[in-house]
């Protein structure tokens, strides 16, 4: 992992949901760091806990069912989990911003997009708040229009007066990005930013995020299930399975030589990797399905679906820890190269 300055450090984070069916340990002992100016990707299939980690960072986990049980989240030297709500509000939308998967449901349908972006600006304005509110409002509106221009929306002066339902999915996502970057955050959390979009729109949105990152020097925590997006856009990657990180490395290293059987399985599942053998006309798969807690399988959570693990006694009974196998490379597997 790069030795650049660390912006966010998640240490031993655990979060659980308390439901009628029992305690669901959504995140267990997760640790990783995001460096300044870099993109860190958390990749995994649905239910692995990646969105819960994002919500934990911003302390948006739904209470009382959800609770951060243990761990620390250190941002710019402060443990976010120890802050009072008032202090946390200074950080949310301001220093750490988030964009979500479904822009239509994240935007308020009864306010114009201009108003929504301006709201974020007004709340976090560092300027003198004793100014006449109308003047501050006018300034915020102009800033909002400029932000729409920055994210590539044509005719921003006109578009700012429109409501979310009048915009396409790609434009709504860009409005969310505009809101998110309005206060020049140090960290942008992007939770499945392109999943609900067409492939061409998604590609263009990711290009936009790259562009903004270069301009602002912000770090991006990219959460996705799409390995290909990670390969193209992330600097560092952590692969999650059933609430834990199973492999973590620099992006290039990971894709050049994945160690964990789950990572390797996922890469093999991609249709394009089967193209080299078209005659077979069958895709590689990972048998079974992601375990739904409670309870998780004993030992290594992946063992029932693993070619090696399903026959190995140690894999079935003892849970492997995430350990460093090479400088900057971490794997949680008994059979990883040492």
């Amino acid at each position, binding site marked *: 992992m790069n030795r650049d300055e660390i912006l966010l450090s998640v240490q031993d984070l655990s979060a659980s949901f308390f439901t009628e069916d029992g305690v669901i340990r959504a995140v267990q002992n997760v640790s990783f760091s995001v460096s300044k100016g870099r993109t860190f990707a958390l990749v995994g*299939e*649905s239910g692995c806990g990646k969105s819960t980690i994002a919500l934990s960072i911003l302390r948006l986990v739904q209470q009382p069912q959800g609770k951060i049980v243990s761990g620390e989240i250190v941002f710019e030297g402060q443990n976010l989990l120890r802050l009072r709500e008032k202090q946390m509000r200074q950080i949310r939308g301001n220093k750490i911003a988030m964009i979500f998967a479904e822009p239509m449901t994240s935007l308020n349908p009864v306010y114009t997009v201009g108003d929504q972006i301006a709201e974020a600006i007004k709340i976090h304005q560092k300027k003198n708040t004793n100014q006449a509110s109308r003047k501050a409002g006018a300034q915020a509106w102009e800033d909002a229009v400029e932000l729409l221009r920055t994210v*590539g*929306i*044509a005719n921003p002066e006109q578009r700012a007066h429109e409501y979310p339902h009048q915009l*396409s*999915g*790609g*434009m709504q996502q*860009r409005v969310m990005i505009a809101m998110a970057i309005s206060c020049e955050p140090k960290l942008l959390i992007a939770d499945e930013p392109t999943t609900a979009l*067409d*492939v*061409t*729109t*998604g*590609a*263009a*949105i*990711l*290009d*936009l995020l790259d562009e903004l990152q270069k301009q602002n020097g912000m770090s991006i925590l990219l959460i996705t*299930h*799409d*390995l*290909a*997006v990670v*390969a*193209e*856009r992330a600097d560092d990657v952590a692969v999650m399975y059933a609430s834990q990180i199973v492999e973590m490395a620099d992006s290039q290293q990971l*894709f050049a030589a994945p160690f964990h059987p789950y990572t390797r*399985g*996922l*890469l093999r*599942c*991609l*249709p*394009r*990797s*089967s*193209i080299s053998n*078209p005659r077979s*006309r*069958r*895709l*590689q*798969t*990972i*048998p079974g*399905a*992601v375990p*739904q807690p409670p309870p998780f399988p004993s030992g290594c959570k992946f063992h029932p679906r693993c070619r090696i693990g399903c026959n190995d006694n140690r894999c079935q009974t003892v849970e492997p820890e995430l350990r460093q196998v090479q400088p900057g490379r971490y794997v949680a597997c008994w059979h990883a190269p040492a």
Partner: protein
Amino acid sequence: MRNEYLLQVDNLKTYFPIKKGLLRRTAGFVRAVDGISFAIRAGQTLGLVGESGCGKTTVARSIIRLVPATAGRVIFDQTDVLSADRAKLRQLRKQISLIFQDISGSLNPRMTVSSIIGEPLKVHKGMTGRQLNERVATLLCEVGLTPDHINRYPHQFSGGQRQRIGIARALALQPKLVIADEPTSAVDVSIQSQILNLLKDLQEKFALTYLFITHDLAVVEFFADYVAVMYMGRIVEQGPAAELYRNPLHPYTRTLLSAIPQVYIDDFRLTIDDCKPVLSEVEGSKIENQKSEIKPAGCTFGPRCPWRQNNCFKQMPQLQQICNHKGHFVACWKY
């Protein structure tokens, strides 16, 4: 040679009227499907590819008359579908079935699995009792589920399992043609490959013909024999799958291919980078966003096209076969 095509679609058009004003006069039309033609041979798979809003789902619905077509012909197994009477249509609908994208929305949450899969058998074949239960159990096994799931409700299954239930239901009446509308868009990658393998196996076992509708070009390359790319209600390029991917001609096809994220970027990808998607131009490509009531002249892709020239705005290009590549058609003034 027309006999060997199980499904033939000929210049299909489906327009939805835009009604305006106090008297709800028809002011114009949303041209969801604007002249689509293709044919599928029995036992093969046609991949219909396009992004959201291009009209591909409307094509599927028009074929089985869930939505009234405005013009054109649909011939299924020598029978004219669009002009068939009610009785004939009922017969036809036993032979064509659908698999839907919205897995949760397409399974009635208040019906058990056995009721869901058994419904078509009860309605169309009048099956009851033990015969019905046996058939349902067989179908469940075909899709990789077990008969002890028979009395459970959809919410008790995972996404991948629900899609399997949908597939079992689609197979119940032993159809000849299965229209699969984005069957794997809503599931995880590892489940997607399981479902696709299942669909392939079922195709071989039951000699099924597929119309596979999707936005995912990577999946289609693997799954389909023949591919048609749709944009704004029209087919802009079509051809054998391998040929289309090796040699994409239409700028929209190239834009789509260059937008797919890839783990390992190969040289081929670099050759199509002349058509990278540009953010400001992506707007307005959905049919329902068409504000004009008058049909615009020229190629619908013109405003977004990196190769656009003057005559692209004057007349709509028609699909033409490219001489040296048999079966590969493209609608573009460049060729």
